[in-house]
């Protein structure tokens, strides 16, 4: 088994561990808060994956996949994990404002840090891409379609929220406290990002099918 293959298997194992820590793991691991540990591991996996992909020699699996397609599929996986984390921990936002709710404060901080970390990692490693041209007119067309789809997804979700809040009887909206509504708005952004990555990934996939 080649070293790169072992490396990718290692990354997959660490990614699985990070996802478990974030979504279903114990509260603390070796005295460290499990969510923080999962977040750090996931960031390490994201960086390791992008770094490994940028080093794949021509002739390998990287031959048929554009930098943009790699970024799209990795971004989709990353944002889906963040979305799952946000959904699983949504109940903690049903309470007082964040400065009086340490659990919600911690979850919210982890979500924002994961999103910022992903954006930074993608940009830094995109700039380090080894093989000449990173983006051309075809990539921009595919990304424009993805951005359009993400905008549409965001509009649909926000209209859904508006209809839900406008037409539901007041007694059925007891769950809709401000911190949870804020969390749902952030979740809408995460889902629209995931949708954008999905549409971009499918665009590339269709081009080389």
């Amino acid at each position, binding site marked *: 088994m080649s070293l790169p293959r072992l490396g990718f298997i290692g990354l997959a194992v660490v990614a699985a561990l990070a996802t478990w820590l974030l979504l279903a793991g114990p509260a603390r691991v070796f005295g460290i808060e499990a969510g923080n540990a999962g977040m750090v591991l996931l960031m390490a996996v994201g960086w390791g994956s992008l770094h490994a992909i940028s080093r794949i020699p021509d002739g390998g699996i990287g031959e048929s996949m554009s930098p943009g397609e790699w970024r799209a599929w990795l971004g989709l996986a990353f944002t889906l994990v963040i979305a799952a984390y946000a959904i699983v921990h949504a109940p903690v936002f049903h309470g007082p404002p964040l400065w009086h709710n340490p659990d919600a404060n911690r979850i919210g901080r982890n979500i924002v840090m994961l999103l910022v970390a992903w954006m930074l990692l993608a940009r830094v490693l995109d700039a380090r891409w080894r093989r*000449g041209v990173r983006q*051309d007119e075809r990539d921009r067309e595919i990304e424009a379609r993805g951005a359009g789809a993400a905008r549409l997804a965001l509009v649909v979700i926000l209209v859904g929220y508006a209809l839900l809040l406008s037409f539901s009887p007041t007694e059925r909206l007891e769950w809709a406290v401000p911190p949870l509504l804020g969390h749902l708005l952030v979740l809408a952004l995460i889902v629209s990002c995931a949708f954008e990555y999905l549409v971009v990934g499918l665009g590339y996939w*269709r081009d080389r099918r």
Partner: protein
Amino acid sequence: MGNGTPVTNAIRRLRFERGEMTQQALADACGVTRQTVIALEAGRYAPSLELAFRIAHALEVRIEEVFQWAGES
């Protein structure tokens, strides 16, 4: 842009006639990714007018020798 465009091309043949120019060399000469050259040769992507001219220039032929309209006239 979907699978198959009404614009066909002779990029692959012309590359080989130009001393077996590689896809990467053509991509570098035109400022695109190698995957875009692959998509062009497979007929899955119709280039912009600018890219079409760049490709013809890199292959040292006129644009109509590279691209042909295969759709309904």
